[in-house]
């Protein structure tokens, strides 16, 4: 049962901000709402969440001995993670087709990633066993 995560990213902030500035908020909600409704009604959505914009973002990054903490998005990379969908679909291609529909703001990108199952990791590893135990008690997506 393949699961795919569709990850919303901002790859060109200026372009995206400019595009979004032109779109009234109501219209943005309408565009997203319609697509979400379509996804839900297609029966493929397992989970979806959106994230706060960049002004609320804190990043800690590894650069030397101590992690460096900065406000705002990722400095150099400028790839803000904006939200995700977890889909249960028949194939990777189907996930890609949904991703295409979700790619509607200029300057944004949608990344399609397969979600491996815990079975794919070495089962005799104690950390994997610990994780399994946690999942048993707390659940997972």
């Amino acid at each position, binding site marked *: 049962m393949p699961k795919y995560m569709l990850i919303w990213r901002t790859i060109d902030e200026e372009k995206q901000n400019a595009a979004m500035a032109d779109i009234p908020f109501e219209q943005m909600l309408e565009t997203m709402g319609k697509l979400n409704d379509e996804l*839900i*009604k*297609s029966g493929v959505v397992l989970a979806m969440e959106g994230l706060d914009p960049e002004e609320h973002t804190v990043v800690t990054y590894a650069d030397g001995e101590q992690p460096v903490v900065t406000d705002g998005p990722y400095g150099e990379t400028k790839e803000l993670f904006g939200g995700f969908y977890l889909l249960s679909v*028949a194939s990777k*291609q*189907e996930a890609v*087709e949904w991703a295409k529909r979700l790619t509607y703001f200029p300057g944004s990108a949608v990344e399609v990633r397969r979600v491996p199952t815990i079975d794919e990791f070495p089962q005799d590893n104690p950390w994997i066993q610990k994780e399994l135990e946690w999942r048993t008690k707390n*659940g*997972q997506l």
Partner: protein
Amino acid sequence: MSDATRAVEAIWRIESARIVGALARFTGDFALAEDAAQEALAEALVSWPEHGRPANPTGWLMTTAKRRAIDTIRRAGVQREKYAAIAHDQDEAYDDDVDVERIDDDILALMFVSCHPVLSKEARVALTLRVVGGLSSEEIARAFLVPVATIQARITRAKKTIAAAQVPFEAPPPDERRERLPGVLSVLYLIFTEGSTATSGDELIRTDLAREARRLTRVLIGVLPEEPEAYGLLALMELTASRFPARIDASGDPILLEDQDRTRWDRGAIKRGMAALEQATPRGLGPYGLQAAIAGTHAVAESVEQTDWERIIVLYEALGRIAPNPIVDLNRAVAVAMAHGPLPALELVDRLADDKRLDHTHLLPTVRGELLRRLGRSAEARKELERAAEMCTNDRERVVLRQKIAELT
């Protein structure tokens, strides 16, 4: 298969129900709509890999299917009014702002027509997977281990039957809908059970089919959100599927519930199942809801010993009252054995043995053999388990039975 071909198939999975639904509404002719949609799909499979994918794939498919429908009507030279209805907007660009409620109605109609009582069970299953699920005849044939020609013939015959019975393309009115909904749910459940336990062959779980059954049930709930039993069915499917990762061992043999590694159960599926079960309760649980409640009782138990078997007995009793079935009674006997030991359970099973409806399945001798084994009556247990192994049509289940026989002392 090329990427372009795979892309056509993926889009078809997403869009086919809408396209067939809209065409059937335009033409009032379900068979014609399905044929035209299939022609459009066939054209896309040739044209897109060669000329590239159109800017608006859904619009392309819809327009092409409409044209094919018009060609057919024109060739037939009759049904002028149908032609007028559909030709008038044939060249209109595909409208992206399609009316959501109209699509919902189309999909609901599609489900009820595909699951219409004039059709055989096999035809309902094939037609639902084809028109609502967007699966090809090849995919359906592969899932059900039958030749492609069989599925094609089944679908062709089903369409003729619907035309001959003059089944209108519409969801039944609310009062009739309540009556016919169980028929739709049973088709979805059949697809799921075929996916969760192959009735023959060596593949125990065909998860694709079980996944598709859950998707279609969510589609149904999307257009019919007020039906508790639809949620009950979804809950049952999710909770059953949550055990899939633990159900077979490395060599592909089935692992019994009591021996399953519960850390492998899919907690996400359990959560979704329990959430759906809550939606199923407002007016008291129906047959699917009760089965889901039983599965849910297992799902939340940390072990076999800590399972609330008394609750399971009560749920099976309730299920036996609203949907009398000897298999339910047999399962209740198993729960009784867990709660109160093998002897009272054996009494229940012996009473069931007279029920001719259980003659065709290996389940009764399987359970009886197991109870006798626990009571230390090995010779009788051996006889029953051997009978069960002979009757069992699933290779993997038979392996487990043979192993039990070998372990008898």
